[in-house]
């Protein structure tokens, strides 16, 4: 009996082993292959991109177009992979020596990654393909450069303008007129913006905000660059010095704080904390709880997709500046293509980047993403058939001499964190802007100087 049981257990063991081994062998032999669907006669270019959802799907149209035309002709196949936290994954893979051939990063990464030798310089390849400064609007060409070298090319850019809800303006026309304001146009100076906002504000009996004419912190994505509309900048690229304590910068943050003083710090923070997500119909501008917002070209797409009934009920205008004569000021932002250091197929990767940067392809991609074109030359077709009805305005803003981009500072994330914290503190009336800026000025300058000193020391060591 015991012997039969032992045989049974032994048989069970063999059966279990067989059940594990056979599927494993079958999987190895005929299972899915990572590169199973890839053409074996082409060079595979790995491209990591941050976009997901609809934006990714639209980009894939361009990738497919390349793979079916020029890629086919030149024996290149671009494999596009949607990647979350793409900047961090690019960084880690670059450090490990196995980077993608192309990474779709943000413009704010360029200086930091370039300074740390994470990117391949693209000057030679760009020249070879006839891509020069003249190809682009100046602000975007500058964005792609660091320390006199080209490290990136633009994928899709946008600039910001004032978006205002025409229906709210119309519904409150009498209030605006009583305040001496024209309900049929946008404010043109900061003082006018404040007057429009005050006339449109609707405050409840307990001081709670029911409708805000304008709030600098809603959504506040570009709040760190408010000084541009005050004719200032917190970075002097010639002297390589921060200028946080310059009068224009202080004035811009004073203006941000003035809204907390006017409406009450708790009222503002409570109002903002009750707002919905940006990409939802509960977006403050879409929901009609904020009448004017500073936002990018792409907002038209969100309005059309999330609240089509609002189409035609909003308008865009240059964001007001502190003084008349300071016209068409804007902050430009862009996604970029980079080739990480150590990429295996650098030339083939650039072939794809150059393909996207051809006028017809770039305009197609930018229109699909509801953004402006970074190129100096823009076709009438692009302007006439763009998703954003105010595309001509956004294009002209980006061409303006007052168009500015992210400061080319390699410690930009730290600057952003410090400024973001300071903005929160001044909005909560915890600190005056002058004191806050005086506090961060020496700290950030020291961090910048330390960073540069370390880089110099490193270069000296490398040359030894």
């Amino acid at each position: 009996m015991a012997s039969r049981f032992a045989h049974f257990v032994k048989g069970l063991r063999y059966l279990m082993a067989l059940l594990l081994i056979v599927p494993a062998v079958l999987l190895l032999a005929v299972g899915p292959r990572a590169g199973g669907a890839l053409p074996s006669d082409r060079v595979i270019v790995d491209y990591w991109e941050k976009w997901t959802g609809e934006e990714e799907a639209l980009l894939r149209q361009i990738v497919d177009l390349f793979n079916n035309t020029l890629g086919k002709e030149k024996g290149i196949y671009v494999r596009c992979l949607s990647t979350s936290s793409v900047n961090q994954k690019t960084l880690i893979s670059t450090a490990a020596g196995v980077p993608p051939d192309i990474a779709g990063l943000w413009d704010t990464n360029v200086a930091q990654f370039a300074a740390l030798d994470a990117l391949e310089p693209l000057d030679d390849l760009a020249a070879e393909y006839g891509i020069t400064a003249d190809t682009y609007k100046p602000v975007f060409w500058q964005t792609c450069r660091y320390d006199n070298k080209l490290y990136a090319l633009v994928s899709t850019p946008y600039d910001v303008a004032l978006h205002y809800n025409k229906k709210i303006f119309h519904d409150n026309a009498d209030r605006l007129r009583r305040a001496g304001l024209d309900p049929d146009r946008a404010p043109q100076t900061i003082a006018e913006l404040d007057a429009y906002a005050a006339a449109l504000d609707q405050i409840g009996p307990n001081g709670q905000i029911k409708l805000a004419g304008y709030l600098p912190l809603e959504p506040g994505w570009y709040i760190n660059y408010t000084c541009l509309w005050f004719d200032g900048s917190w970075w002097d690229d010639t002297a390589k010095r921060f200028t946080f304590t310059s009068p224009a910068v202080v004035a811009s943050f004073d203006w941000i704080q003035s809204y907390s003083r006017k409406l009450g710090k708790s009222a503002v923070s409570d109002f903002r904390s009750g707002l919905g997500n940006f990409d939802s119909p509960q977006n403050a501008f879409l929901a009609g709880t904020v009448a004017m917002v500073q936002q990018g070209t792409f907002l038209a797409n969100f309005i059309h997709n999330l609240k089509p009934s609002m189409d035609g009920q909003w308008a865009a205008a240059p964001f007001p500046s502190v003084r008349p004569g300071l016209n068409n000021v804007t902050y430009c932002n862009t996604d970029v293509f980079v080739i990480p250091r150590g990429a295996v197929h650098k030339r083939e990767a650039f072939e794809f980047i150059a393909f996207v940067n051809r006028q017809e392809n770039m305009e197609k991609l930018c229109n699909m993403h509801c953004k402006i074109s970074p190129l100096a030359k823009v076709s009438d077709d692009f302007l006439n058939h763009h998703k954003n009805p105010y595309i001509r305005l956004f294009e002209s803003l980006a061409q303006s001499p007052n168009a500015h981009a992210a400061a080319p500072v390699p410690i930009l994330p730290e600057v952003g964190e410090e400024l973001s914290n300071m903005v929160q503190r001044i909005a909560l009336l915890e600190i005056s802007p002058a004191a806050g800026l005086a506090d961060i000025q020496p700290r950030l300058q020291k961090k910048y100087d330390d960073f540069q000193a370390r880089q110099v020391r490193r270069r000296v060591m490398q040359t030894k």
Partner: protein
Amino acid sequence: MSLSTDQRNFYKGMAFLSPWLIGFTVFTVIPIVLSLYYSFCDYSLLQSPVYEGLGNYSTLVHDPIFWTVLKNTVIYALMALPLGMVLAIVVAILLNAKIAGVTIYRTVIFLPSLVPAVASAMLWLWLFNSKLGLINNALRGLGMANPPGWLSNPTWAMPALVLMSAWGIGNTVIIYLAGLQDVPRELYEAADIDGATPLRKIWHVTLPCISPVIFFNLIMGIIGTLQVFGAPFIMTGGGPARSTYFYTMYLYDNAFVNLKMGYASAMAWVQLLIVLLLTALAAWSSKHWVHYSGK
């Protein structure tokens, strides 16, 4: 050369152990050792490390953000740890009672532990929403005209996160429940004969008997609260005005946003030393309040 049975068994054991051993060495031991070296270097991950002695540690001491995050983390630990432990013990004692449907109650208490951290953070974001959130709606229903702004208010953001942490006590409750099942019935009977009230029975019988479990949960709690990351990272990003900016978040930002891997490594070692110190302190104090039945 023939091997003895013991030798054969040893090699067989090592062969079976090797996948874990290799993984542990490659993914844990080597990174730990390297991080100690990097903590003395200027290292961005992208360029080779440059030795700079105690530079990172010296910068750390003079970094005001370091002290802010350390203070925030200690305050959070001091609030979340006692709250979580007391609440878990109380709930476990209640769930240990012989009442109808106790299995359902136990399941309900444990369920939040099964919800992924990101999902629960998103859920609590809405619960804490000052306008539409259930919490403020309930407070308004109770007559509070201006309930707190929770996550938008520096005074309330930290208590909000502490409150949320109590939601995930399910795991701890299960461990306490297991401990409670082991308390000898005769001790309660003896206490009954002596005329002890329910509270005295808990104080003099239950708590001493489950003190090893309390000690275990204390150690786990110290480690867990000092490493708080997920919920504030998703829900507040450290704000408003750095009021919920915690140690591990700053460490992460230095490593993967500011690309200061050497500095982040120094922070990690300081954190390890703090955890070690507190654990040693708890272990030292345990001889005064932890009772093992075998002794």
